[in-house]
């Protein structure tokens, strides 16, 4: 593999006797849009949790950008440039939209007590930069009118957009989206996908997304990884994966 950004190798995650992820291996090419598919209970979200440090793997390893990240805490992995969103959006409801955005920006000295006291000017300068960038992103995502509203007042679709925009504030090289289209109306959904493509083209951002909508998967991803019962059963071009008999079996309820 020449320019892989993420490598998942033999990852195992057990909950009691249940092997939620059972030796899954695949990799994600830098600058690609890779879709992770599979029937309910295949272990996709659990795998996301392991990759991003929200769950500890019982075996195998995760390598991001040439560094082993498995076993490291979630916040440290996020700081490496791998940022995730959640299946159920985690908009910080009782905070204004703009604060949701500015929160995510890295390198803010004012986020540390020592910085608040010793470097107030640097903090204020960074805050101005961050605000400007946040306003810019919000207007790109059609949320500029909502900047000062509490995030809890946004619709489900707007929250998904906010979550994506917020993830981008963290200046990621790779974004993991857990069911970005779930509960989003088609218009907003189309816009969200458009943004994903633009980001990949303009900034070379890599995307790994869990998605159930096959049309979205086939039409928008470069590569598809299909999981069933904790393992990767197919991995390749969208068309090839779609016609793979093991994939069809898995979706029809047979055991692969």
């Amino acid at each position, binding site marked *: 593999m020449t320019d892989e950004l993420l490598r998942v190798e033999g990852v195992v995650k057990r909950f009691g006797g249940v092997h939620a992820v059972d030796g899954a291996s695949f990799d994600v090419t830098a600058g690609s849009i890779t879709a992770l598919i599979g029937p309910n209970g295949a272990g996709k979200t659990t795998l996301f949790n392991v990759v991003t440090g*929200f769950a500890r793997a019982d075996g195998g390893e995760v390598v991001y950008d040439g560094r082993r990240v498995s076993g490291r805490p979630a916040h*440290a992995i*996020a700081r490496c440039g791998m940022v995730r969103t959640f299946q159920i959006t985690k908009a910080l409801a009782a*905070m204004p939209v703009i*604060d949701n955005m500015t*929160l*995510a920006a890295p390198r803010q000295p004012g986020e540390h007590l020592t910085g608040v006291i010793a470097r107030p000017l640097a903090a204020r300068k960074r805050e101005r930069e961050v605000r400007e960038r946040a306003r810019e992103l919000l207007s790109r995502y059609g949320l500029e009118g909502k900047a000062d509203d509490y995030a809890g007042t946004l619709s489900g679709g707007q929250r998904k957009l906010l979550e994506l925009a917020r993830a981008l504030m963290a200046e990621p090289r790779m974004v993991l989206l857990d069911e970005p289209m779930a509960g989003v109306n088609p218009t907003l959904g189309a816009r969200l996908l458009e943004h994903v493509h633009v980001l990949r083209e303009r900034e070379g951002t890599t995307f790994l997304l869990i998605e159930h909508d096959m049309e979205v998967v086939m039409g928008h991803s470069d590569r598809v990884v299909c999981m069933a019962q904790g393992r990767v059963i197919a991995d390749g071009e969208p068309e090839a994966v779609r016609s793979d008999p093991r994939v069809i079996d898995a979706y029809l309820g047979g055991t692969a």
Partner: protein
Amino acid sequence: MSPVFAVSLDALTSADFWIGVGVLAGTYTIFTLGLQLNVGFTGIINFGQAGFMAIGAYAMGILVIRAEWSLWAALPVATLIAMAAGVLIGLPSLRLRADYFAIVTIAFAEIVRYVAQNARGLTGGNQGLLGFDDQWLDVSDTILGWLPESLQDQFLLPLLIVVWIAVAILTGLLMLLQRSPWGRVLRAIREDEDAARALGKNVLAYKLQSIALAAALGAIAGYFLALNLSFLSPESFEPQFTFIGFTILILGGLASYVGVALGSLIIWTLLEATRFIDLPLAAEKVAALRFVIVGIALIVLVAFRPQGIVGRREEMVLRD
């Protein structure tokens, strides 16, 4: 027919009464500022604030009396000891869910109180600790000397002045911190820890800072309590004081530092004034009745104005 009860208003018009209420209200404002930082702004339920208050006050008393330190040297060191206790309690237990953490902290505060009761060599046990405030009394006399003659018999007036200056400074500092990016991270943690984590924030480190600062505020409140009573005994640190703090917090309003001072003034005025209600009841029943009244007031408040006097309603109802 004799009246069922009578309120003697004489007490409420005396300066003594209001100075006493003022000192208590100021002390518990500082105490509750720590709770506000934890509960209102970080989402940590700290039921152990009376324990941090006890650690601060006893560390100060022990350093002055047993180790013969100067009071002024003992104060910052005792504050650091309380902060270290906060980190020590937080480190293993802040990873727990909020409700379990609350249980750990209340147990911690009770352990502190029992140690104070039984480590007689250090704390004097139930006999208490006396004589740590000589240096304060000198300062207090100096302040009294600056005041007009007519006020000079008000022995507690200097403490009242100093405690409210401390309230003003600490409230101001906390509000500044809250408006900083640091405060924004705390609020994000209160809303959703996982979201904060996914954006690269070290949640445990922030929670530890929050609890250490609350412990420092508890310790400072402990010094004022000690100077007010001139005496340290375990019964000043019973868990009920943490719950009075929570009452103040809810009355003033969650997520508002200004509300804390307001809530504290109201609660202590109520608690102290109700001492003077004359009821055909035994004294301990009247004492219990005071808490019944406060409890009813709290229920009514939560039912009709959950955000308290100055809290923000949005921050109460917009939780996912």
